[in-house]
């Protein structure tokens, strides 16, 4: 072993190790640049925070900042006055369950009483419950408007983002006038966005949403 150790030390003296390049200049340039970037970033963050503080301090701006809720596939805007609403509209074409091009999620795995294809997705009708599922990856967005003062809040459903609207509001579907909707939970689930309309409170709506499979 001793011989081998001596041989290794001798080998070290014969290794082809290139001359080290001068590093100090390049290192100092990078350190100076990084310090400058950090300073600019700190300044930008401070400016942003100051602008946000000013916006929140001004009643008009604060209202507009807090009037918009958005997740992938859905946006809710709080407006001073709801537009005139149609009470009822067709949900689309009735189809059998096995005709949907993607696997629909069903509350507690129960089959719907009726399934309709329409509005870029699928409407699942159950007694007292209406579920709409659509693929939102392609940029499709469900637009909703609710009157100022309506209970709207961000929620989490199975770790994904959602919005709860706890009162009557307007939903804008393509090719028709805005229609009235009641309590609605909208949330993301992978590539899908789901909308659950049911006359219950948030906790029960969340329980139904979590039962989807």
């Amino acid at each position: 072993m001793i011989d081998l150790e001596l041989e290794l030390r001798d080998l070290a003296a014969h290794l082809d190790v290139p001359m080290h390049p001068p590093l100090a200049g390049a290192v100092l340039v990078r350190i100076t640049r990084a310090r400058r970037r950090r300073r600019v970033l700190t300044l930008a963050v401070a400016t942003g925070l100051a602008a946000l503080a000013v916006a929140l301090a001004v009643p008009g701006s604060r209202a507009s900042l807090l009037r918009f809720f958005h997740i992938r596939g859905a946006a809710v805007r709080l407006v001073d006055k709801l537009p005139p609403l149609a009470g009822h509209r067709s949900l689309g074409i009735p189809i059998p369950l096995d005709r949907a091009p993607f696997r629909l999620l069903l509350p507690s795995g129960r089959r719907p009483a009726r399934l309709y294809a329409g509005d870029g997705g699928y409407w699942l009708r159950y007694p007292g419950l209406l579920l709409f599922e659509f693929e939102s990856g392609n940029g499709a967005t469900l637009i909703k408007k609710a009157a100022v003062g309506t209970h709207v809040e961000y929620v989490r459903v199975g770790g994904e983002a959602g919005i709860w609207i706890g009162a009557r509001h307007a939903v804008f579907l393509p090719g028709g006038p805005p229609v009235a909707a009641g309590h609605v939970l909208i949330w993301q689930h992978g590539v899908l966005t789901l909308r659950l309309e049911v006359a219950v409170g948030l906790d029960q709506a969340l329980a139904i949403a979590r039962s989807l499979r």
Partner: protein
Amino acid sequence: MQSPDEETLVERACRGDPDAFEELVVSYQSLAFRTAFVIAGDAADAEEAAQDAFVKAHRALGRFRSGEPFRPWLLTIVANEARNRRRSRGRRAALALRAADPGAPGEDPETAALASERRERLLTAVQRLRDDDRDVLACRYFLDLSEEETAATLGITRGTVKSRTHRALGRLQEELE
């Protein structure tokens, strides 16, 4: 153990003195590059690793404990950078012997040729070892680091340096037989 001068230099660098840090880079650039080179096996990777290590060391100076030796602390960062590059490359570049290495003064050509051949075999055997065996031998014998410095550089305990060195020498011996 670091000299009082170096300790002062490190303290000044920790307080944000760029001249002090530059002096540290100049003092350690050769060792940092050599360490990165024997681990990564490639000059361009070694230069990048050493440069990145100094930049990261500068950023981490606030966490450097006053009075601790600077050299193993820096080598830990250098070795990490070099190992990351070796990993991302997916294979290890091979170390080589200097071309047309002159023999020892007074050595006859035949003895010099035999010694050179023996070194070639030894280096080939070293290259065939696993990365962790090769790294510990490189630190101990190619870089002449102490057991303590090797432990800090490779992020292992001194006991592991001892056992790994013993194991690596055994495997090297087997490779040579």
